């Protein structure tokens, strides 16, 4: 019955099943979020007072420094590289198009300990430089170092989305500007760039959310941010209330970012898939620009991927003998399974959310969407507890019911199962999944729908034959991004995993927290090699 109703309601006036699902999902997401926010009401007095007196200003300053620093650098890197590979032609363009995505496979915390291991005072490189009285790098273990590492790790998000914009509109915008008498440079800054702004904003949103939520990299640098303060409040002071209050501030930051991004995004032009028209006509770069483009792209690739991988390989070969065991196949298997399951579920849910937003383009939809994607800005540890508590309550309810009905005392049913882990992942990683799918969804204009209907196709068949091919790119991107994110995820996994469900990320954490960076290179390298596969698939979609 519902299926038939869907068919006739594709351009509905009243609430559809889509909206119902979206609302239910948003409600489910609100549970951990509200638990976190409600903790604000519990008196944390002493701890909160102490934190606000000694640390809060520094935390805010540090967080702002990171947000502005990483935001700026990733914007510059992402946009420039996207323009070069999407619109221009230069030697090696095809190679750079997909290889510049590779840093996506690198967890930020891995990049952090690799660079620290290479560039800190006591690293072999610096010792060598000092021995030969060569100039050394000092002060890497500071905000600059963190910004450097995070930017190299996160620019692919902006790169991905900016490419999306430029490959469909870039050349056209330039031509339009040129026909009005502007130079190419003016055309870029006056027309192409502003037109791509919603996409760039989308990419920056993902970047800033990652910056807010990061815990691994800032811990390794011993850089104080909200996440480290939350950790200290929770596990140092054992004050869940103070931790929750700090988390609420993070949530506010996240809402602000989401708000800004949303307002920029609403100005996104819905264009049709006119890619083929100018696939062959690229902007050929001459002489000096050509050299610059190749060197620039190569430099970024080299620093953000090649050098760290080489360092990891060196460390792995040194520690392989005593670190590797058959359990590594288990770790790998667990990482893969969790990634695939979560990616599949998120794609499905994101589709539903996106359709709901499409059929009801109103404020309620944007609120629901905002709620569902907010999890990306929350540190994993915080989200884990937010999910833990209702699950524990649900378990308690089930156990009481079982006790009453069957007179048994069961162990925890939901707790300590992958149900909790996957639920946390879904709340945490909905944003990248949704963004990709929603961007694709917006390409399906009303006129496509109406044409399809006049040709007799409607309901689910229309979904299959018309929508899905257009959405394929977005679905692929979403699945790949989520898969890689889940594989890299560490705090939630650490906190909620069932017995024997260690993943590669867990192993990396265990080893780095003991200062065993060389041993951590093995699981890190494995993680990256596996992560390259979905990233490569992702780039096939993005390629022209």
């Amino acid at each position: 019955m519902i299926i038939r109703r869907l068919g006739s309601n594709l351009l509905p006036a009243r609430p559809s099943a889509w909206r119902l699902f979206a609302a239910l999902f948003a409600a489910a997401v609100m549970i951990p979020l509200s638990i976190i926010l409600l903790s604000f009401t519990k008196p944390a007095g002493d701890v909160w007072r102490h934190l606000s007196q000694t640390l809060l200003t520094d935390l805010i300053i540090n967080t702002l420094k990171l947000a502005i620093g990483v935001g700026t650098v990733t914007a510059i890197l992402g946009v420039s590289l996207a323009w070069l590979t999407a619109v221009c032609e230069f030697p090696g363009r095809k190679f750079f198009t997909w290889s510049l995505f590779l840093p996506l496979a690198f967890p930020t915390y891995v990049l952090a300990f690799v660079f620290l291991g290479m560039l800190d005072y006591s690293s072999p490189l610096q010792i060598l430089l000092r021995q030969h009285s060569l100039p050394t790098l000092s002060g890497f273990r500071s905000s600059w170092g963190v910004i450097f590492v995070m930017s190299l790790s996160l620019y692919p998000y902006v790169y991905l989305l900016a490419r999306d914009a430029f490959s469909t509109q870039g050349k056209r915008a330039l031509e339009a500007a040129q026909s009005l008498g502007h130079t190419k440079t003016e055309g870029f800054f006056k027309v192409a760039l502003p037109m791509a702004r919603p996409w760039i904003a989308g990419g920056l949103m993902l970047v800033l959310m990652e910056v807010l939520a990061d815990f691994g990299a800032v811990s390794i640098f011993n850089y104080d941010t909200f996440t480290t303060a939350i950790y200290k409040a929770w596990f140092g002071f054992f004050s869940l209330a103070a931790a929750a209050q700090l988390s609420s501030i993070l949530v506010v930051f996240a809402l602000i970012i989401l708000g800004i991004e949303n307002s920029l995004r609403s100005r996104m032009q819905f264009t049709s898939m006119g890619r083929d028209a100018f696939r062959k006509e690229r902007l050929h770069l001459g002489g000096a620009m050509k050299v610059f483009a190749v060197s620039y792209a190569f430099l970024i690739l080299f620093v953000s991927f090649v050098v760290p991988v080489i360092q990891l390989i060196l460390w792995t070969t040194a520690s392989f003998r005593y670190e590797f065991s058959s359990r590594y196949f288990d770790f790998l298997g667990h990482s893969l399974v969790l990634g695939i399951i979560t990616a599949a579920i998120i794609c499905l849910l994101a589709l539903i959310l996106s359709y709901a937003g499409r059929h009801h383009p109103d404020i309620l939809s944007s609120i629901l969407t905002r709620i569902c994607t907010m999890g990306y800005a929350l540190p994993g540890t915080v989200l884990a507890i937010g999910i833990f508590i209702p699950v524990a309550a649900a378990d308690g309810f089930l156990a009481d019911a079982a006790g009453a009905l069957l007179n048994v005392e069961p162990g925890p049913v939901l707790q300590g199962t992958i149900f909790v882990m996957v639920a946390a992942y879904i709340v945490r990683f909905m944003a990248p999944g949704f963004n990709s799918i929603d961007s694709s969804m917006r390409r399906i204009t009303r006129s496509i729908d109406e044409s399809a209907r006049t040709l007799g196709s409607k309901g689910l068949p229309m979904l299959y034959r018309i929508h899905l091919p257009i959405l394929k790119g977005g679905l692929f991107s979403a699945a790949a991004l989520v898969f890689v994110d889940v594989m890299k995820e560490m705090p939630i996994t650490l906190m909620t995993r069932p017995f024997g469900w260690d993943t590669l990320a867990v192993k990396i954490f265990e080893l780095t927290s003991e200062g065993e960076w060389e041993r951590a290179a093995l699981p890190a390298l494995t993680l990256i090699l596996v992560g390259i596969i979905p990233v490569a698939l992702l780039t096939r979609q993005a390629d022209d």
Partner: protein
Amino acid sequence: MTGKYIAMLIMVAIVTLGVIPSTFADEVVVYSARKEHLIKPLFDLYAKETGTKVRYITGNAGVLMQRIKAEGSRTRADILLTVDAGNLWHAADEGLFQPVKSRVLEKNIPSHLRDPDNRWFGLSVRARTIAYNTDRVSPEELSTYENLGSPKWKGRLVLRTSKKVYNQSLTAMLIVEHGLSKTEEIIRSWVHNLSTEPFSSDTKVLESIAAGQGDVGIINTYYFGRLMNKKPGLPLALFWPDQDGNGVHVNISGAGVTTHARHRDEAIKLLEWLSAPAAQTIFADSNMEYPVHNDAKLHSIVKSWGSFRENFINVSRSGELQAEAIKLMDRAGYR
């Protein structure tokens, strides 16, 4: 109608699945903050000797405690095995442990290394002591922890972050010995003497001293052992401070039986086994720590570091004063 029956069937299935695991009697479940490679060999040995299987999950101490707390009476954990007396104290304070009266444990473990109320028991000892660069410092220049704040060490001190619980416990012990205001002075003087921002790990502290970025630092002995094992040529050595005073600051890794343990007796048996000399040697050796049992043999490398007077204040005070210690360090600007 059928829908309702199916739903009920599913519920029953889920609940049954929940019942089954808890009926395995011959096993003990451990939530461990000690890493897997340190506990697995020991637990495998225990299973071989006694036939009781040990199931475990590893994690971060604070995270594990919050998990046990959230799981409440339905927790699967029988034992919480963790590092640092501060963590153990907090677990007891949160009501996660139950008191255990065991003559074996009382005999094997010295009283300052276990809870006065018998809720948790130390199983290995680590010393947090001074390490120095042998090329630039001679042992005669060193004396106490507090002395590291004197002007002669300006720009030469290297420390690990105050966020690590080991430093919190060290500060807590200083508070017990010197009181709040004097300790704050001491910490401030340390911060004043730092040669670089605090590191996130003891190993990095040691490497920094070896590279000459600093000359002295405070670390746990086993990190020293591990590093020297890997890179024997480094110009590093240990110094035992305060031998004429209170002695070297020590801390423990230890465990307790959880309040809602399902396998209480097996848990106590496991703890008693771990406190006996044979297991003690393995437990301590695996990480170059010191056993709690006075008769257990030392790792040869550990023995080569020499003997020292240890601080006999009950380690539980680290936990009692942890919050104060953290606040103090924050006020003093020790990151």
